[in-house]
Each structure stands twice: as structure tokens, then as C-alpha cells.
């Protein structure tokens, strides 16, 4: 799980380099933390070593992040989270990670392949201010 610290630092660096808002950086950080934790926890039940790749692409008004892994197939877009809790006694203790991803990512796509899973997250983002604009 020490890879999660690397992920946290990568997201923070990305946010600084791309001039992303702190709120957007937080949403990306949360979604990646949940999804990567899931893959590490459940993707390799037999303990075999695996590979997880995260790619980032900036488009004019959105951020696209692709997570590829070679673990057990899992489609979070097909997962139906439990309803919101109405009482402490009846509340499930777990199962909130995918709900959070769906809440904070603007779009989520899953593609299963022979190699494993490809998950694409889209975050809408305003175009960052250019240096000339910021100085105006």
C-alpha cells in the first residue's frame, strides 16, 4: 500500500504543473485512491505480482485519466452501490468507494480486455489561465 503515497504525490505534482484547482485535485486524488486501493486489494487474490498503469491527458476543458491493470476483471460502472443510510443500526460499514468515484468523477467508462481492465475517468475542468491572462 506504500504505492498510495507515490500516487498522492503524483496527483499533487500533476495539479501544480497543470494549474488545477485544489477542489479538482482533491476529486482526482479521491477517485484514484479508491480505485487503486480496490485493484490492490481485490485485483490479485492469488498474490501474483501485477502491473497497474495510470495515464493522464489534458484536453481543452476536461481531464482524462486512464487506469489499466492486469488483475481480476471488475466493472465499477456495473456495480450498484447500496442506498444512503437512514440509521446507524442499518448502515453498512463498507462499500462506499465506488459511490464516491461515481459522485466525484464526471464520467466513468470501463473496458474489459484479455489483459484485464481499462478504466477511464473524465473530470470537467475549465481551461487554466494563461500567464498573459493572469498578468492582465
Amino acid at each position, binding site marked *: 500500500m506504500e504505492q498510495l503515497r507515490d500516487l*498522492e504525490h503524483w496527483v499533487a505534482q500533476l495539479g501544480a504543473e497543470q494549474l488545477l484547482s485544489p477542489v479538482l485535485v482533491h476529486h482526482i486524488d479521491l477517485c484514484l485512491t479508491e480505485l487503486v*486501493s480496490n485493484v490492490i486489494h481485490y485485483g490479485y487474490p492469488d498474490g501474483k505480482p501485477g502491473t497497474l498503469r495510470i495515464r493522464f491527458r489534458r484536453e481543452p476543458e476536461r481531464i482524462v485519466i486512464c487506469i489499466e491493470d492486469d488483475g481480476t476483471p471488475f466493472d465499477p460502472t456495473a456495480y450498484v452501490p447500496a442506498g444512503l443510510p437512514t440509521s*446507524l443500526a442499518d448502515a453498512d460499514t463498507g462499500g462506499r468507494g465506488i459511490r464516491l468515484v461515481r459522485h*466525484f468523477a464526471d464520467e466513468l467508462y470501463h473496458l474489459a480486455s484479455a489483459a484485464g481492465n481499462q478504466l477511464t475517468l473524465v473530470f470537467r475542468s475549465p481551461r487554466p489561465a494563461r500567464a498573459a491572462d493572469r498578468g492582465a
Partner: protein
Amino acid sequence: MEMAVHELESGILGIDLSGRMDIVGTQQIDLKFSVLTSTRRAQILVDLSNVTFIASIGIRTLIVSAKAQKLRGGSMVLYKPNDQVEEVLRATGIQAIIPIAHDLDAARGVFGAA
């Protein structure tokens, strides 16, 4: 993560959490937090003002302890989460089952009503 414990007035137990409440951080405090919040009846104020990030695993820890405390007849309040942490808590509906307070009077009111 780090955790500090102190008695507030009127027998309220204050637990201050700080740091990042993801899997790594939560594992660092989970056992101590569970023992403190589950082994005796108490009114527990969990100060989240220095928690910089919370993931589902952190929410799980809060719910498990709040459930255990309710079974003992006590109660728990989440105190002063920052905007980002509160946004995550509310996205999972936690405020409906563990009250969130931003000042001590509101927290006292919850404990008084519990």
C-alpha cells in the same frame, strides 16, 4: 495519521485525528481508535479539523466505532471537518447517521439529545 485523546468538559471524550485518512493512515490509528471508542460508554467528539483527506476506508472506521458506541448507549459527533472532508462525508450520507458539528454548542446539543 496521528491521534490525541483528552477529556473535554461534562465528561465528553475528545479524540483529535490528524493527517490523511486513507488506507495507510487509517491503519495507523484504527486499532487504538476502535478500542477507545468501543470499550466503554461515552460521548465522543471526534475532531476532524486536522484531517486533510478521507477515503471510504476512513469512513468505515468512523461508522464501525459509532455503531459500537451506540450499542453501549453512547454517541459520537464528528467535529469541524474541513470543506473537502465534509464534502466526502456528505456524499456518502454520513451526516444522517453520525452528526456533524462545527461548534461546541452544537455538539453539546447533540450529546444532550442523545
